[in-house]
């Protein structure tokens, strides 16, 4: 799925990286708990989260993610967006709540890439 499709499905606004919406991703994950992201994420390049702070960007960077979507209409501060820009990570905000956002993406074919053991 292209990031541009994710943007449409989630009715999202791009805060940084409009020129990178042609990136194709095969899976995603949703979490407000960064230690869980570090523990369980592998090859899931999109993070959906309701948590808004710089550690979200740093965590996404550590596990090689290319896009962060803040749900529930949350808008990160400029410092957070700048941090993501420095790491080449696309940032979006969506009015959808976490459950609905994850469900919509899954329904449209973006899976979790989980092997069932984690």
């Amino acid at each position: 799925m292209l990031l541009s499709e994710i943007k449409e499905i989630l009715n999202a606004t791009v805060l940084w990286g409009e020129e990178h919406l042609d990136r194709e991703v095969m899976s995603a994950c949703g979490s407000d708990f960064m230690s869980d992201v570090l523990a369980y994420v592998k090859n899931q390049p999109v993070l959906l989260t309701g948590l808004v702070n710089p550690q979200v960007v740093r965590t996404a960077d550590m596990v090689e993610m290319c896009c962060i979507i803040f749900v529930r209409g949350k808008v990160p501060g400029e410092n957070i967006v700048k941090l993501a820009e420095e790491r080449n990570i696309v940032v979006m905000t969506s009015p959808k709540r976490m459950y609905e956002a994850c469900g919509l993406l899954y329904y449209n074919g973006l899976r979790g890439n989980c092997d069932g053991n984690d």
Partner: protein
Amino acid sequence: METIKLVYPVEGGDLIEAGEASSKMKLTLKKLGLPQDVIRRASICMYEGEINMVIHADGGEAQVEVDSDQITIRMMDSGPGIPNVDQAMQEGFSTADSTARELGFGAGMGLPNMKRYSDEMTIDTVVGTGTTVTVKIKIPQ
């Protein structure tokens, strides 16, 4: 390959800004052309260690050695030490305050995550003196 030694100070007190040392190390490992999975595992270990140092020990120092066959990361602090290491290694055990939890950490996953992503991990700690957590990540030949 000659051993490459890197030293990163970890500032204490500001959890919001924690992670800068890990980001710098990750960038250096990328420049060295190491395998992506090795970089990812080393970065996660250091990042969790860095967060721990800021939460519990008011910072410290990270020493990184890159050899041809492994990366060694030593996270050294002069904090309060860990009274019960076995307990600290259990997923879910944490003494962190609410500030850490508000940032998505502090739920007892730091040390277990470091163990999960390293090939070898040792904890040297003395209550009242400090802690050194050492992790080794092997580089596939």
